[in-house]
């Protein structure tokens, strides 16, 4: 086995341990807790008030926030490979990344100026 796989084996073991621990605790709880079925116990807890059955349809404006998050997440992903090559890419890389970031920032400014970033 290569060194690379060995280092990721640790990650795999950790993930399996986490899953195992959750399973163990839930399983143990199931074994030792008393089970008395009552209708009310199966209603989701919503801060004391009775749930209405389905969730309310949320406003489309919030979607813009999710999309902004995705776009800047993608930007961040491009920054990693640029950062590790920063020295060898030099000024050329800096200009490239600046253009990329400025273009996306213009999008953010646009969204802000159009007032879609206001919650109320």
């Amino acid at each position, binding site marked *: 086995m*290569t060194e690379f796989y060995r280092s990721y084996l640790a990650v795999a073991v950790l993930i399996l341990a986490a899953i195992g621990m959750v399973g163990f605790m839930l399983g143990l709880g199931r074994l030792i807790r008393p089970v008395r079925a009552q209708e009310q116990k199966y209603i989701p807890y919503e801060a004391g008030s009775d749930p209405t059955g389905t969730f309310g349809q*949320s406003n489309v*404006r*919030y979607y813009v926030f999710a999309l902004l998050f995705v776009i800047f997440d993608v930007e961040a992903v491009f920054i990693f*490979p640029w950062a*590790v090559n920063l020295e060898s890419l030099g000024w050329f890389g800096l200009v490239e990344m600046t*253009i*990329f970031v400025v273009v996306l920032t213009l999008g953010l400014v646009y969204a802000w100026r159009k007032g879609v970033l206001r919650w109320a």
Partner: protein
Amino acid sequence: MWEQQVAFWVIAVAMAGAAIGVVRANNVVHAALFLIVVFAGSAAQYILLLAEFVAWVQVLIYIGAIIVLFLFGVMLTRAPMREERGKLDNSQRLASAVVALFLFGVLAVFLIDAFGGTELRFRDSMVEVGSAASVGDSIFRQFVIPFEVVSMLLLAALVGAVALARRD
């Protein structure tokens, strides 16, 4: 390399099971959660193929951002949260099953024909190829034009989404 084989099959079976879960779930939120398992599985497969950077991009973008977008999208709809059988299905199950099986068969036959019996032997020296440094080298030297065009593409996506979501 039997460890690699075992790991591949464990992950592949988990992914296939979760993928079936995505289309079988009657609750769209459950479908999105199953999708996380599929994405995580493909990230693990990338690790097995020594594509370390791509694997973490998969985690960051897909599990991190795309699922968030999914859940926001789900909340925009009036999809049923409780189990209401049949509502997410349409009448084309048979046709889609035939098409899916046909496509699977064709691709399986040709892929096995082309790559069956080929053995991949990974060495530590190959890890370098999948690293952030070498991916960055390709993006910022070879694929400069697509990289900058992607920024315009993302900008257009943002502008379009804002235009559709605005109410004034």
